[in-house]
């Protein structure tokens, strides 16, 4: 069973930074999915299983708060944990994201430790894909 992460941010370089940070933390992620805004993210969620979402707030088309609100309304995705990673440090936005269902909030600029700690607390300390087969596993099908 591979562990998939969805990164939502309108800046491709920021998405790359987050991806690298997660990799360096030692989490064995199966697949990284990326979206430039909330709408794209919802589309991806409908097509692929995601174990964890990291999302910015300020994005065009559908911002992070609207995105998380939509996500939590949908039974299929509502239990997937979301970490907000954003420059938006205002108390109001922090409260609002938590109220809408975000599990954690990390302010940019962040240290790799911040992401690692947040992920640890949400998904456990080890994420291992023992079988190494990232494609659908025969014994897991029914």
């Amino acid at each position, binding site marked *: *069973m591979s562990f998939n992460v969805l990164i939502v941010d309108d800046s491709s370089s920021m998405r790359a930074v987050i991806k690298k940070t997660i990799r360096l933390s030692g989490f064995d992620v199966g697949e990284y999915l990326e979206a430039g805004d909330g709408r794209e993210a919802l589309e991806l969620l409908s097509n692929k*299983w995601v*174990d964890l979402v990291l999302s910015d707030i300020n994005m065009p088309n559908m911002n992070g708060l609207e995105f998380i609100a939509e996500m939590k309304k949908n039974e*299929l995705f509502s*239990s997937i*944990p979301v970490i907000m990673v954003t420059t938006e440090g205002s108390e109001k936005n922090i409260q609002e994201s938590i109220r809408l269902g975000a*599990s954690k909030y990390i302010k940019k600029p962040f240290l790799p430790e911040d992401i690692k700690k947040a992920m640890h*607390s*949400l*998904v*456990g300390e080890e994420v*291992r*894909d*023992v*079988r190494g087969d990232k494609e*659908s596993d025969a*014994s*897991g*099908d*029914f």
Partner: protein
Amino acid sequence: MEIVVGVGDMKVSNNPEAVIITYALGSCIGVAIYDPFVKVGGVLHYMLPESSLDPGKAGKNPFMFGDTGIPLLFKETYKYGATKNRLKVMVLGGAQILDQGGLFNIGNRNHTILRKMFWKNNVTASFEDVGGVVNRTLKLEVKTGEALLKISGNESRKIPWI
């Protein structure tokens, strides 16, 4: 005739006299499935999410873990003529200690692995009662598919899932 499913256990039956029972699903997850056409029912009671924790133990008892137990539950019912598109699915359990949050939340982890496997295999639960701080007990009557759920602190109630 009672068929008891213990902790880390799975039973399937098409015997019309049978009532499959599983007790005290704390943080464990109980998955009950029933095909009303061929009248086959099955219950899985698993304790932990992923078998990668201890492949040796999973080899000895695949029903201890969600990722190994769930496929086997379904596949066992297929042997009795059940088909995936007809099977009704009920998910119970995954309780947690008060104020548990995300850490060490085995109940939550157990539920998450189930959602993942259901997702991958195109299965949707007809009924779910998951979470909270309660213990749940389930009785499934094979003849009719009738399911009785008892939540600690409350009376038994019939579940509308068929």
